[in-house]
């Protein structure tokens, strides 16, 4: 009567498919991260350097049609950079959290798990994009797009090397603030449109948090603008030629650091999602690609906010050029390399903070923003003005 299969039939080791997860492969991992970094750098060089150089050298930019094609190609490349950054950062973050937490992180897709995100993306694409009964369909679908686009917009204004910037806006700082504020709309609308209570609570928290952190963030940016005398990001980087802004602008730097973590909605300020409290908050009801867009936006921001730290306070692309002419292509490529390395360091610090700290409470967060950071940011602004006067006088 026994229907229980005998052990012999099941004690077979599953066949290994091309890789062995039991074997740690630091070499492969290191190579993969080098490749990740290299491909990102290559993409940046193509998007910021080669394509504009090509269009300029051929004189295609003068015609309307040529400019149109240039814009389309550049937009696609920018999207590509955003997507690549997100794909890389997802696996890097998971690997880093794994390392920190004494486990291995993703291990099964690709050697040492480096292709994990690709399969994640495929899985999310193949997943049903389910919408619950009482959602507002239009806004429900629009919200992730708004969030993603806002993250993506910020990328446009970031200069990666001398003269290498997609849109060299003379109001770059204001554009950054505007674009990041737009992201809050996506979160708030997405939370409200899904018709669930957790989503609504998440939306409320997101609204309160993002609005309150925009102010110190904007003031910190403004301080940098005042000190460097320009709102154009390239000018700000140029201004740090001798001394990085982190030294004179230390207070705005601190304010910006805290505010940008809050902007990122990562621990300790991940209140809008707060898995253990709100079961995901604003993205509780999202699945499939809609969720993927929120997710991608988060990781694009995880690249952009550290990138802005570098641009505003850590000298942007500045680094030893070994006698190269700063206007030459090679120098610019080297500069973009410096920029990416500095950004990588700051991304690591952001991830480190994320791995360590518990979450703040909503009212403490407001307290910190309005009572702590705002006065500090104002002080920083005044300090920046004084320093500016001092610099100009001297």
């Amino acid at each position: 009567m026994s229907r229980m299969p005998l052990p012999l039939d099941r004690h077979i080791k599953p066949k290994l498919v091309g890789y062995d997860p039991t074997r740690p492969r630091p070499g492969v991992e290191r190579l993969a991260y080098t490749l990740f970094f290299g491909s990102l750098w290559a993409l940046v060089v193509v998007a910021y350097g080669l394509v504009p150089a090509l269009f300029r050298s051929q004189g295609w930019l003068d015609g309307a049609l040529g400019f149109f094609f240039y814009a389309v190609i550049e937009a696609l490349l920018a999207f590509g950079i955003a997507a690549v950054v997100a794909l890389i950062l997802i696996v890097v973050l998971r690997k880093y959290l794994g390392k920190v937490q004494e486990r291995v992180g993703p291990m099964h897709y690709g050697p040492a798990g480096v292709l994990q995100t690709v399969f994640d993306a495929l899985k999310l694409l193949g997943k049903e994009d389910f919408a619950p009964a009482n959602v507002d369909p239009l806004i429900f679908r629009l919200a992730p797009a708004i969030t993603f686009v806002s993250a993506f917009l910020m990328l446009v204004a970031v200069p990666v090397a001398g003269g290498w910037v997609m849109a060299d806006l003379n109001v770059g700082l204001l554009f950054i603030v505007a674009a990041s504020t737009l992201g809050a709309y996506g979160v708030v609308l997405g939370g409200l449109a899904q018709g669930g209570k957790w989503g609504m609570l998440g939306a409320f928290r997101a609204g309160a948090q993002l609005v309150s952190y925009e102010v110190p963030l904007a003031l910190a940016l403004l301080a940098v603008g005042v000190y460097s005398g320009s709102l154009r990001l390239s000018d700000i980087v140029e201004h740090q030629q001798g001394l990085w802004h982190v030294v004179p602008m230390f207070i705005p730097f601190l304010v910006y650091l805290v505010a940008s973590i809050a902007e990122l909605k990562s621990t300790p300020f991940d209140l809008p999602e707060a898995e253990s409290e709100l079961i995901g908050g604003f993205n509780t009801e999202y699945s499939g690609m809609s969720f993927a867009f929120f997710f991608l936006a988060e990781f694009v921001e995880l690249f952009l906010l550290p990138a802005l730290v570098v641009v505003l306070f850590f000298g942007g692309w500045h680094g030893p050029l070994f006698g190269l002419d700063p206007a030459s292509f090679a120098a610019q490529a080297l500069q973009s390399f410096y920029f990416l390395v500095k950004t990588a360091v700051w991304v690591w610090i952001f991830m480190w903070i994320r791995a360590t700290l518990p979450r703040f409470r909503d009212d403490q967060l407001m307290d910190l923003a309005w009572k702590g950071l705002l006065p500090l940011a104002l002080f920083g602004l005044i300090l920046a003005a004084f320093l500016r006067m001092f610099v100009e006088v001297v």
Partner: protein
Amino acid sequence: MSLLAEVWEAVRAIGQGMAAVNRRVGESAVTEFYPYQKPEIPPVSVQFLALIQNEDGSDRCVSCLACERACPSQVITIERKRNPAGKGFVLERFDLDFVNCMHCANCVEVCPVSAIVTVGDFEHAVYDVNMLKADKAFLDEIGRRAQVWYSPKFGVEIRKPDGSIEKAPPEMQPGGLAELLAGEEGA
């Protein structure tokens, strides 16, 4: 200035936490990849139950029904008949329903002849819950394949390569400590 001190204290504490986290990066991961790496299961561990046969292939079980009575979830069903050759009983049926088994090893505890034992087999998951019903042939087969098993009466026993069964050395035995200590004193 106390405010500054407070802020400094907070920053220092956060830094300590972050250092504590980062210190772990260098340590090797503890992840086990199950199908490829299997844990070592001590023989005492109640992973699975088996019926042990003597070296000559006869049942150790004497059909005393002690395990059937001791089982809290009443998953053991025993049918026996009088031994035509001699005294005692012969086992006819021994069914163990692993669906409701709580792995308490009470049956192993009460067995007077160490016929039902705990073995370290743990890969017995199946897809259908109705398949978790074991009979005597199955439990015997598990017992025949077991290399090491435990029962309170005989302790940990091992099967030698030539098929003979003998008691494991004291290092493997629960209660082997007394023996080891006595050996040390003797030496």
